[in-house]
C-alpha cells in the first residue's frame, strides 16, 4: 500500500524531472517543475515531515515557481520567437553524469542511513517551532533580517522617483 503510493510519487518526481531537462520549450520545463516539486513534497511526507511538505508547496510552488512562470510569460509570447533551451555538448555531459553516478552509487549503498520509526509522531511541527524559537533563535532572526532587507530593497527599486 505505502509502496504503491511511494512508487507513484517517485515516478512522478523522476518523470517530470526528466521532462524539465528534456523539453525544448522553457514554459513546459517550468510546468514540469511543478510536478517535480509536488513529488518532492510527497517524499517529505514519507519521512513524517508533513510540515516541511507544506512549506515546500507554499514556497516553491506558490512562490518561486509562480515568479518563474511570470518571468517567462512576460518575455515570451506564443506568436513571437520561442525561447527554447537546448542541450549543448551532450557526449561530454553524459560522461560527467555517468562519472558522478559512479561516485554516488557506492556512497548510497555504503552509508548507514538513519532509519525512521514506522510510528507516526504525534506532533510534527511542534519540534520545528521549539528549535527555531529556542535553540536557533539567532540564525532565525538573522534570516528574517535578510528578508526584510530584500523587501525594503525591492520597495526602493520599484518606487516612483517623483
Amino acid at each position: 500500500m505505502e509502496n504503491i503510493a511511494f512508487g507513484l510519487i517517485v515516478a512522478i518526481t523522476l518523470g517530470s524531472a526528466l521532462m524539465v531537462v528534456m523539453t525544448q520549450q522553457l514554459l513546459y520545463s517550468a510546468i514540469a517543475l511543478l510536478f517535480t516539486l509536488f513529488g518532492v513534497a510527497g517524499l517529505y511526507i514519507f519521512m513524517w515531515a508533513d510540515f516541511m511538505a507544506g512549506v515546500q508547496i507554499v514556497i516553491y510552488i506558490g512562490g518561486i515557481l509562480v515568479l518563474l512562470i511570470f518571468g517567462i510569460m512576460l518575455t515570451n509570447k506564443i506568436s513571437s520567437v520561442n525561447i527554447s533551451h537546448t542541450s549543448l555538448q551532450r557526449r561530454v555531459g553524459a560522461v560527467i553524469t555517468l562519472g558522478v553516478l559512479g561516485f554516488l552509487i557506492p556512497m548510497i549503498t555504503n552509508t548507514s542511513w538513519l532509519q525512521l520509526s514506522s510510528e507516526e509522531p504525534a506532533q510534527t511541527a511542534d519540534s520545528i517551532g521549539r528549535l527555531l524559537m529556542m535553540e536557533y533563535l539567532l540564525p532565525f532572526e538573522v534570516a528574517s533580517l535578510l528578508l526584510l532587507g530584500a523587501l525594503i530593497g525591492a520597495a526602493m527599486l520599484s518606487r516612483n522617483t517623483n
Partner: protein
Amino acid sequence: MIVDNLIDWFPTSAAWPGLTFIVAVILCAVPVFIFIAVYALVAIYGELKISSFIQDKVGPMGQGVGLHAWRWGLLQPVADALKLILKEDIIPSSADKKLFILAPFIVFIGAFIAFSALPFSQTLIIADMNIGIFYILAVSSLGVIGIILAGWSSNNKWSLYGAMRSAAQIVSYEIPAALSIVVVIMLTSTMSMQGIIQYQSGLVWGFLPNWLLFNNPFTFLAFFIFFISGVAECNRTPFDIPEAESELVAGAFTEYSGMRYAFFFLSEYANMFVVSGVAATAFMGGWQSPIPGMFNTPGWGLFWFISKSMFLIFMMIWFRWTFPRLRVDQLMDVCWKGFIPISLFNIFGVGIWYLLIG
C-alpha cells in the same frame, strides 16, 4: 480518518495492496467530486435567485417542478450544466494546445484536494492531518498556476491581462489570509482541523459559544480579514477584476468553452466552499453546535458544518450583488496597506491576550 478506517476494513487484502489503494482512493475521491458537483448546482441556483431578489427581479421560473405553475425554476442549474456539457469544445488554433488543456485541471485539482482536510463532522473527514489548516493554505496556491497557464496558453490579450491580475491578486491576498490563520494557530496551538474545532467547545463571555469569532477582539478582527481575503482569493466581486466582464470579456477564461469552462466554474465554486469551510472551522466552531451541549452528534455536526459554510457562501453572493468592483490600485491598497498591517497587529495583540488573559 476515513482513509485509515477504509484500510482497516480490508484486513484480508494484504495480498492485494494495490486493490486496497485503488479502492481507498476511489471511495474518498468520488464522494467529494459528487459533493462538489451537487453543491455547485445548489450554489448556482442560490446565486441566480439571491441576485434576482437583491435586484428586485424574480429570477429563473420556467424550469423544473410544475414548470410555470410552481414558479421556482429549480432545474435551472441542471439546464445550465447540461448546456455547458453539450457545448462545442473549442481550442483556438493559435493557442498552446497542451497547456490549454492542462490548465483547467490544475485549477480544479487545487480546489479539489483541499477538500481532503475539511472536517465535515466529528467522524467525517478524509484525513485529519497534523498540519490540516496549513495544508489547505498550501494547496490553494496551486490554482494560481493553473490560471496563469490558462491566460498565457490562450494567446489572447484579455486572457493574459486577466491572468496577470488574478495571479497578483491571489498571491497578495494569501498573505493576510495566512496571517489571520496564524492568530488561530497561536490560540489553539494545533494545526489539525479537528483540534481547532475541539478547542472551540463550551461558552465564552457567559452566554456566547466559545467560537474564536467571539473569543476575543483580535480573533473577531481576524475572521473578517480572513473571510474578505478569501473572497478575493476566489476572484469574486468586489474583487473580480481578473474576470471583469465589462473590460476583459472573461479574463483568463475568455477562450474557454464547454466542459473546460465548466471546470473553471466548478473550481470557483469549490474554492468558495473551501474558504467558507476553513472560516467556519477556524472561527465559527466547525461542526460544534451554536447551543453548547445540545445537538452535538455527528449527524448534527454535518448539518452545522454545512449550514455555517452555506451561510458564508450566502454572504459572498450577497457581496457580489451589492458592491461595485474595486480598481486595481484600490485592490492592492486594501491588501498591502490595510489588511497586512491589521493582521500583523492582530498577531501581536493575540499574543498579549494569550499571555495576560489566557
